């Protein structure tokens, strides 16, 4: 645990903050400071998010609240699931963690939290010299193979406190994937042909989470000062950073609320609007903007699903 904290501290000083003034950097890091305030490590867990919910309840029974930025880590997850109850494959060798963050952002910025987490993961991975890219909203891909996945849910305790639970999975040293994921997933070890230091990766990830979540809060502060919202066309700081890492615009995509079970239509991704929506152009030239749901890249689909057959049970990591 100490090793993770030491790495986290070291990576803070190496963060890419060039686009911001020293006073802005100070504020951003202050907003994100609670990240990793408490870290709990387990060899095995059913789900990191379940453990966080348990901690929230335990604290509430004691008349306390769970510290913002509490992180639960596990070497392996045995009963994990992703969105739409998809199986989450989390063997030893990967980074599997969940973090609790209090629900204190305005809705306009809460909806960008998944972007902030994706940006943090992508930046942490790119430190290894790999050209990792974000697919809207927050899948981290390397050459269209999934390397990291994120799950965000918001929960309310019995006492009424609301937390965002952020689940992150990064394929680190794990190289063996279930059959249905072969060719669609990759790991850092596979990409680098060497074993990576997991505590160092986790420390780097926590440093980047501190930056990107802090930036989201700073962005909110700036928007309030400017008196403008994304609906009015304000271009946010967080989204600008996220867009630098995203390769979705220009891709031929297939969209669906649950893309594996019910793909809805195909289109060309044209732009990310100031609120984070994905604007797509349909075959007849008309545009549609989506604020939820998921996409796959068409060339990715062709490669992954021969004969246009979808896997029955996809894995979202």
């Amino acid at each position: 645990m100490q090793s993770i904290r030491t790495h986290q501290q070291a990576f803070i000083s190496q963060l890419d903050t060039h686009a911001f003034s020293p006073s802005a950097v100070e504020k951003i890091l202050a907003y994100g400071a609670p990240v990793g305030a408490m870290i709990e490590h387990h060899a095995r867990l059913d789900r990191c998010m379940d453990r966080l919910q348990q901690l929230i309840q335990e604290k509430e029974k004691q008349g306390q609240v769970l510290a913002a930025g509490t992180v639960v880590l596990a070497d392996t997850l045995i009963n994990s699931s992703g969105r739409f109850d998809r199986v989450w494959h989390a063997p030893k060798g990967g980074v599997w963690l969940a973090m609790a963050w209090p629900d204190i952002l305005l809705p306009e910025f809460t909806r960008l939290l998944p972007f902030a987490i994706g940006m943090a993961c992508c930046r942490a991975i790119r430190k290894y010299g790999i050209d990792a890219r974000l697919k809207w909203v927050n899948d981290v891909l390397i050459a269209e193979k999934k390397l990291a996945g994120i799950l965000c849910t918001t929960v309310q305790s019995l006492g009424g406190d609301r937390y965002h639970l952020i689940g992150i999975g990064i394929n680190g040293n794990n190289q063996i994937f279930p059959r249905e994921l072969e060719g669609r997933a990759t790991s850092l070890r596979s990409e680098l042909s060497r074993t990576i230091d997991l505590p160092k990766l986790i420390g780097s990830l926590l440093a980047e989470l501190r930056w990107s979540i802090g930036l989201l809060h700073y962005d909110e502060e700036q928007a309030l000062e400017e008196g403008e919202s994304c609906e009015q066309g304000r271009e946010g700081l967080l989204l600008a950073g996220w867009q630098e890492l995203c390769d979705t615009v220009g891709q031929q995509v297939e969209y669906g609320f649950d893309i594996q079970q019910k793909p809805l239509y195909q289109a060309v991704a044209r732009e990310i609007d100031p609120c984070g929506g994905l604007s797509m152009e349909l075959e007849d030239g008309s545009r549609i903007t989506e604020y939820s749901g998921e996409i796959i890249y068409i060339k990715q689909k062709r490669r992954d699903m021969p004969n246009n057959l979808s896997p029955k049970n996809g894995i979202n990591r």
Partner: protein
Amino acid sequence: MSSSNQEIHFDEILGQYKSDPYNYLDMHAVHTGKVRFLVEEGTAVEGASGEWMHKPGTRLYEINRERNTKVITSKTNGTISSVRSELDGHFVEAGEKLLTIRHPLKKKEIIEGILQEVLFLFEAPERARYYFAMDIQSRIDQKGARSVFIQPGDEIITMSLMKRDTPVYYTGEPGIIHSVYFTPGESIDQGKPLIGVCAEEKLPVVQKVITRVKAEWE
């Protein structure tokens, strides 16, 4: 409210709908800027269409701010009943009323309009996609929505926005889910009703209204 009072109340509402079976939709400036109207009084307009409602409706006005022009289109069909033409070519503040669309109501819309007077409408907290919580969906699947009783604090719906799922807790009066205004997974605008909840004792009155409108409306 007694049953007889409700009867009188509905008679009044029914009378209003019969004398003026239209909905008047005011359109306001979406933000500050210089406005230019693209319709005039009496122009027939159409709402969005297409399988995904992706084909925009009739172009109503454009608003220009800092050389960025945004075209606002109609969300519904009808006729332009008034335009504040004195504002054409002028700078307006966000929220300024610009024009009104007169939308002819169908029988189904009239029933819904009347129902919405008596049902508790639980609205979408944000523009997002919604689906019922697993427990509620399973009860709906088994017995139908009108057999599902909910009360404040129940987790009834999951809101999905930007790949973040949030449980939505019911905050209205206890009752049964009488009307469902969304299809699971459908994108719903903020403030639009998701469900209409009816107190059990009001159910007979609600049924009576539906029957009357169906029988009396041409």
